[in-house]
């Protein structure tokens, strides 16, 4: 039930540098994912506390405010997390390596 071979969104997304898509429900339980269960679990167990902590931070600073989107950037890629009312979407992206020229 997890075959994404013909899925246009996933293939176009992978071509653009996207690596993984994980869909969670509002509590943070993984619903669907393009990577293996073990890897999904690794991502979710690291990113879910961070996401909820960031949400608490935002609400602590201003109680009427709420987080909608979070983007983490590192040396080799980016992770985007979108919070909706019913779902949380996590997208992992890898940067394409540029050719390094000797200076």
């Amino acid at each position, binding site marked *: 039930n997890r075959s994404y071979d013909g899925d246009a969104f996933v293939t176009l997304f992978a071509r653009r540098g996207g690596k993984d898509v994980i869909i969670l429900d509002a509590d943070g339980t993984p619903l669907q994912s393009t990577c293996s269960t073990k890897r999904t679990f690794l991502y979710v167990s690291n*990113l879910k506390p961070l996401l909820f902590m960031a949400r608490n931070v935002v609400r602590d600073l201003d109680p009427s405010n709420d987080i909608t989107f979070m983007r983490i950037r590192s040396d080799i890629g980016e992770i985007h997390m979108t919070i909706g009312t019913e779902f949380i979407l996590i997208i992992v992206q890898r940067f394409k390596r540029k050719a390094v020229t000797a200076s």
Partner: protein
Amino acid sequence: MSAEVEEMLKRLQNYKNIIGIVVIDNDGIPIKTTLEYTTTLHYAAVMHMLRQKASQAVLDLDGTNEFTLLRMRTLYHEVILCTQGDYFIVVLQSPCD
């Protein structure tokens, strides 16, 4: 060097979308800020914790990776947290839309 830093902060602050800038060192103490005092302390404490957590999360996911930037979009504004070795900078901006 300090004059350059001041000039850079002033230049950043003059963008019309920027609400405030806080520069925080690795212990969570704000070094430079454009917000008022109590707000700055609040931001420094909270962003310091968040930065530690994010750094740990990225490191756990991939041991060679290092987190450089964190961007949070909230209902009213956007918070950008950028790491730079000995310190990190938090910028608060209102989005263009």
